[in-house]
């Protein structure tokens, strides 16, 4: 009724990405393979436009605004998270063309799907209504299912896509049933209205079960143990640039929703504490996720699969930060955003090196294949070392400050000391398998001949990742300040 064109500015980045995606599809359809070289730069241009629009919103969004009848919000939280997704999308696009060409599965729709998935994530970051949360998750997931299975002639890729799809679709149904029960208890799907009704319904069994189902469904999306069984296979099977995309932005999008829900809608004490409160559930999930993720990674000789388990373990550290929201309130979101940024740069970089090292006949993902890399390709070995150190949490990398801020937030109240102790022990264990890659590269004799990818795009992505890891590691304060200023729409 009262539609206002100015509302379009709230979805500017989403519109820009969607238009760009349609344009790329048309270009691929009508120009065929001839114009394929332009697709990656055009994707980057779309990402750049969307980032500029996000930056414009950051300047305007002194006060968080709501748009489209409360379906979406523009607040600094959504802007920061959307920027993370966009950077992840751009870096994936840089990695993709050389990788697809080498492994002979080039197709132009890849970029359109990548862009649409990113648009879905931005919807998710801005969503303030369960309808938009459902829609954003589906837009993101469906595009990523296809990307996972896009490596033709690879049985692993098809298998990973199948498992990912089955588990993901199951999680979607669980999410929807949970939303329906919450609607039954409150009569609304708007997060703000649900938060207003929370005092009345927070003891209503329908509401509690619905809320548990939503948490479980998000647990599937962020691959928290015990809802992680799809993740190692999907990550290993997918084309490596897609794995980088899944392990970072898809996970960050799940966390964006989880953080917004627990920090605003479900923030009431009686929902957070108690045996079926989310704080205790999420702290157990965090312990399981960290520990089993690390134990899984310890046993891997396959670097790609090791990184897949490592990303599960990192979801556990992030969950520690989410639990901290229960204790110190919404202020704990700043460290989480910092961690997500640090983790995104580091993980895309690490998977980027994995994508770089292999070629068509020889994926070279086993750790023995990395022996002696430093003597032949010192720059890439140095970059990988940097990413491994950041994942393991060594100063002065971004990963160190991510863990530092998250654990410090959890330590503000003594109730979470045990959780932080478990997390720190897990970080110590994880150092073993990260350093194993480093020692293989530096202290072992070179094996077979290497024939890595030669591509400016891959080099650029690795440089951006390394720069990001160092920049926010050496100068962490500006990012943590911005993250702490990332208010929610209340």
């Amino acid at each position, binding site marked *: 009724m009262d539609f206002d064109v100015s509302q379009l500015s709230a979805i500017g980045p989403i519109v820009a990405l969607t238009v760009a995606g349609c344009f790329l599809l048309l270009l691929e359809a009508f120009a065929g393979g001839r114009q394929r070289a332009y697709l990656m730069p055009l994707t980057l241009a779309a990402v750049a436009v969307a980032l500029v629009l996000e930056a414009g919103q950051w300047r305007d969004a002194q006060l968080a605004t709501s748009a489209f009848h409360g379906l979406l919000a523009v607040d600094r939280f959504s802007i920061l998270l959307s920027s993370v997704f966009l950077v992840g999308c751009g870096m994936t696009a840089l990695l993709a063309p050389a990788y697809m060409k080498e492994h002979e599965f080039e197709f132009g729709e890849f970029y359109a799907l990548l862009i649409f998935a990113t648009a879905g994530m931005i919807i998710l970051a801005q969503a303030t209504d369960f309808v938009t949360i*459902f829609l954003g998750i589906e837009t993101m997931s*469906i595009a990523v299912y296809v990307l996972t299975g896009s490596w033709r002639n690879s049985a692993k890729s*098809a298998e990973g896509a*199948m498992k990912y799809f089955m588990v993901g679709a199951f999680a979607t149904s669980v999410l929807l049933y949970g939303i329906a029960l919450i609607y039954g208890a409150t*009569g609304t799907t708007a997060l703000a209205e649900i938060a207003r009704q929370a005092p009345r319904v927070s003891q209503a069994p329908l509401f509690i079960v619905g809320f548990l189902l939503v948490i479980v469904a998000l647990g599937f999306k962020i691959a928290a143990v015990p809802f992680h069984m799809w993740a190692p296979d999907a990550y290993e099977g997918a084309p490596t640039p897609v794995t980088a995309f899944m392990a970072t932005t898809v996970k960050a999008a799940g966390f964006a929703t989880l953080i917004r829900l627990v920090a605003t809608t479900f923030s009431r004490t009686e929902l957070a504490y108690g045996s079926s409160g989310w704080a205790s559930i999420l702290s157990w999930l965090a312990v399981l996720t960290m520990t089993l993720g690390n134990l899984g990674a310890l046993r891997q000789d396959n670097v790609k699969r090791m990184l897949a388990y490592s990303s599960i373990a990192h979801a556990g550290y992030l969950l520690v930060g989410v639990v901290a929201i229960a204790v110190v309130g919404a202020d704990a979101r700043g460290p989480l955003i910092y961690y997500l940024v640090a983790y995104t740069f580091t993980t895309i970089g690490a998977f980027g090196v994995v994508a770089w090292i292999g070629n068509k006949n020889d994926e070279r993902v086993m750790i023995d294949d990395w022996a002696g890399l430093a003597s032949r390709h010192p720059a890439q070995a140095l970059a990988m070392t940097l990413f491994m150190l950041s994942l393991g949490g060594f100063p002065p990398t971004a990963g160190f400050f991510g863990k530092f801020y998250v654990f410090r937030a959890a330590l503000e109240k003594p109730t979470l000391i045990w959780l932080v102790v478990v997390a720190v022990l897990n970080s110590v264990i994880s150092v073993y398998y990260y350093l194993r890659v480093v020692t293989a590269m530096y202290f072992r004799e070179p094996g077979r001949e290497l024939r890595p990818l030669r591509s400016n795009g891959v080099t650029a992505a690795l440089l951006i990742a390394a720069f990001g890891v160092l920049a926010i590691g050496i100068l962490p304060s500006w990012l943590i300040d911005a993250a702490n200023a990332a208010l929610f729409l209340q």
Partner: protein
Amino acid sequence: MIPIHWFLELAAVLFVVGSLGVILRRNALIMLMGIELQLNAANLTLVAFSRAYHDAHAQAFAFIVIAVAAAEAAVGLAILVGIFRNRRSVNVDELTIMKH
């Protein structure tokens, strides 16, 4: 007058049946049908509550869900056909290339 909770309980039963299909069956097609059953059970819950609250928003949501379910089913079936081309089987227990 039919009590609303009859519909809600029917939906709960359908959700359980669908979930059992997904968890216990290994035929990917049947699993997909189980997922469709779950989505429909959630939709029935939404519509029943919509009737209870006299609120058309939940019906619009159910409309959206139907569209999304169609897209999801199409993608799922496409992936399934793709994997069948590789493996000649739709049994998910045979998806064991990658070691655990």
